[in-house]
């Protein structure tokens, strides 16, 4: 990977442990260009009053070369604010100077839409979120994290098309949660992994907050599929509001713990999202007709029963539709495969 002088300077500065992030910004402001800073850092240290570190920077060229070689070897690339494909949308209040990536770099140039949710997501929200992600990934690259629940639902939906960007709160070579190591590799294979953290850095409490600003900053809009009262998904949503982006949320029944945050967003003026059309309309995109397979007569009966009541036990659906329970099991499995219903646990099903 070839980097320009300015890019190299930024990568060096980003990987530098001698300065904290605020000092790095101050240095960049003080120097006419990043490359000038790199060639003569001692000239600008006075702005920080940290002249004493100048000696420690003498090996910077070698260190940078070694770092870039390691990056290359791991198959990672760096995107800097000076890079031509650095997303314009991300030039926000405190943009990451450098992000490391693995996978399809060209996804950075796509339109982007963010889908997030808390770890505890009801199955109907996960299924609906997946379907929305699947559809949106035709016009957008879907931006999300790598956590269980909401993030996972978005990933599942977008994996098929591969237009998927996962932004991690840790170095690209570590994985949080560890159980998603395989999922992470899958995303790297078909989509793009991004992180502003150096390889080897583990996730910290604050890094989730910091990561959320990138999620919100990358995307034109953010959909929150589930959020409790203090969910991290809300941080992303409020960041999106700060950056002037659209925020969508699923409406929840009052009193549902997993949806308190979503309802709060709606109260503050977020778009109500009950299906893919609510998002497509905002972006003036054409909604395609339902691509799901048509239903048989019995399936329609079961689906109508379920639509009327939202969420029901399989035995109750069978009873209402007048179909034996064991046949209903088969019908519901068929409906599930066709993407009309989703299992909610305890033999209960709900519509999508």
């Amino acid at each position, binding site marked *: 990977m070839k980097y320009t002088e300015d890019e190299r300077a930024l990568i060096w500065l980003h990987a530098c442990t001698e300065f904290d992030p605020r000092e790095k910004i101050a240095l960049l402001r003080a120097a006419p260009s990043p490359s000038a800073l790199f060639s003569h850092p001692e000239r600008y240290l006075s702005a920080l009053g940290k002249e004493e570190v100048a000696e420690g920077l003498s090996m910077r060229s070698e260190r940078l070369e070694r770092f870039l070689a390691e990056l290359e070897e791991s198959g990672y690339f760096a995107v800097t604010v000076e890079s031509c494909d650095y997303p314009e949308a991300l030039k926000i209040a405190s943009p990451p100077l450098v992000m490391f990536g693995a996978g399809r770099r060209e996804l950075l140039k796509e339109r982007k839409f963010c889908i997030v949710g808390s770890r505890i997501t009801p199955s109907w929200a996960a299924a609906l979120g997946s379907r929305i992600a699947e559809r949106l990934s035709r016009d957008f690259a879907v931006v999300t994290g790598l956590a269980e629940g909401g993030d996972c639902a978005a990933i599942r939906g977008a994996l098929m098309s591969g237009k998927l960007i996962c932004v991690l709160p840790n170095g690209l070579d570590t994985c949080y949660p560890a159980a998603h190591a395989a999922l992470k590799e899958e995303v790297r294979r078909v989509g793009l992994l991004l992180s502003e953290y150096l390889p080897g850095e583990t996730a910290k409490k604050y890094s989730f907050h910091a990561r959320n600003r990138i999620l919100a900053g990358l995307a034109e809009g953010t959909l929150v599929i589930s959020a409790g009262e203090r969910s991290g998904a809300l941080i992303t949503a409020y960041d999106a509001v700060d950056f002037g982006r659209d925020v969508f949320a699923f409406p929840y029944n009052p009193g549902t713990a997993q949806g308190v945050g979503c309802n709060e967003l709606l109260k503050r003026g977020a778009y109500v999202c009950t299906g893919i059309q609510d998002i497509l309309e905002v972006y003036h995109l054409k909604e395609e007709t339902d691509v799901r397979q048509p239903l048989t007569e019995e399936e329609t009966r079961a689906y109508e029963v379920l639509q009327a009541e939202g969420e029901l036990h399989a035995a109750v659906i069978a009873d209402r539709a007048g179909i*034996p329970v064991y046949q209903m099991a*088969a019908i519901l499995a068929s409906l599930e495969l066709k993407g009309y219903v989703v299992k909610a646990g305890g*033999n209960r099903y709900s519509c999508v």
Partner: protein
Amino acid sequence: MIAKIICYALNGLDGIPVEVETDVNKGVPAYDMVGLPDAAVKESKERVRSALKNSGLLFPMNKITINFAPADLKKEGASFDLAIAISLLKASEQLIGADVDGIVFLGELALNGDVRPISGLLPILISAKGHGFTKFVIPAANAKEARFLGGAEIYPAENLLEIVKHLLGIEVIQPLETAEYTVSRGGKGSADLKYVKGQPIARRALEIAVAGGHNVLMVGPPGTGKTMLARCLPTIMPDLAFDEALEITKIHSVAGILGEEGIVTERPFRTPHHTATTVSMCGGGNRIVHPGEISLAHGGVLFLDELPEYKRSTLEALRQPLEDGKISVSRAGGTFTYPSRFMLCASMNPCPCGNYGSANLICTCTPAEIRRYKRKISGPLLDRIDLQVEVDNISYDDLTSSEDREDSATVRERVNVARRIQRNRFSKYELNTNAEMGEREIGEFCRLSPESERILRNAFERMKLSARARARIIKVSRTIADLDSSENILPKHVFEAVSYRLDDKL
């Protein structure tokens, strides 16, 4: 004079003939036992001495040598007492004129001369009959299990004196009459599907599981009737045939847990506690290897309640017996093989708090906690469980239909039909049920129509199923088709099988 008496030692479920040779010589009174007797056998000296004295018989004050042949087999337990006593009597010429040739003597002696019951009598009788012996003297208390062995003269004895009188022809003991085997219906337990309220989906899953010999896992919150459902399993299993009953009785006889009837007429239902050790589950012991829970459940159901609470190593030990239908336990004393073809029925909560999927309670578990909980069960074990069904705690009061209040007998009828279809199908193979099919048989007997194939492929992609899950779904669809008396696997069968699918990671 030398006397030879036949008795039997037990090796696993096989009886091994042992000759008890006694020589009474003139000389300084002594009593020597040779031929690898263990402590319990050596102690028989005192029991035999007292029993003889208290029966009014004579314990010879001579040099006595007792030899057990074959000499290389270790003799264990107290079941040789009677044979030692009889051979002593014969050698000391107290049984002149009595014909003891070809009679097998089995029993432990009490000090007053009573004959005490022994464990493992039935397997010994069956082996001995196979070796050509047809006359047996056994403890009267064991008579019930011996009744079912036809084609042999079996004399049940209360005490030693009775036997001596019988042998001398003074007072003959009446041989046992062969009992007719009758299947017990409904039996002792109160378990019956008609008492299970609601749970139509779980009922159906159990029916399929029994019909195809599939293992089943029930997932549901506490107090939803998982144990109640499991207890009904033996009542819907096919009737116990005599051969099968005899085999189960052998195992229970060796374990010494045979009930009043003397033969097992109901399929066993074993529920080892989750603190069970690997040895108690698989069998073991330092001298005699006792059959473990999985062997005691042979022909019946092994119910593991709260599956994740069992020790991982104990569960892993089940894998091989689940595959082979038998377990070999190796100990210093030798290797013992017990049959263990059982149906595994397990239950577990959906999450640590137990409320996941509940209609009115809120689950407070994080995904990581649930994952940790479920990870206690290994993939290879899950691979051997074809059906997974959710048991819920919904109230069924608002259901109008009453069709799911069938009793066990009705369900068993359907199971019997499905089993018959399977027997015909597998008549040329060494298989009994659909669950035992391998890849080759699946290819031969489970041809899917293009439509069914398409459904399965669709399910495969959408649900991210593994290759093993696919085989399981096909096997279960085959059973559902059998229950439907359908030659071909139709789409609806595949769909239903998919609805009881196993999540690989659970």
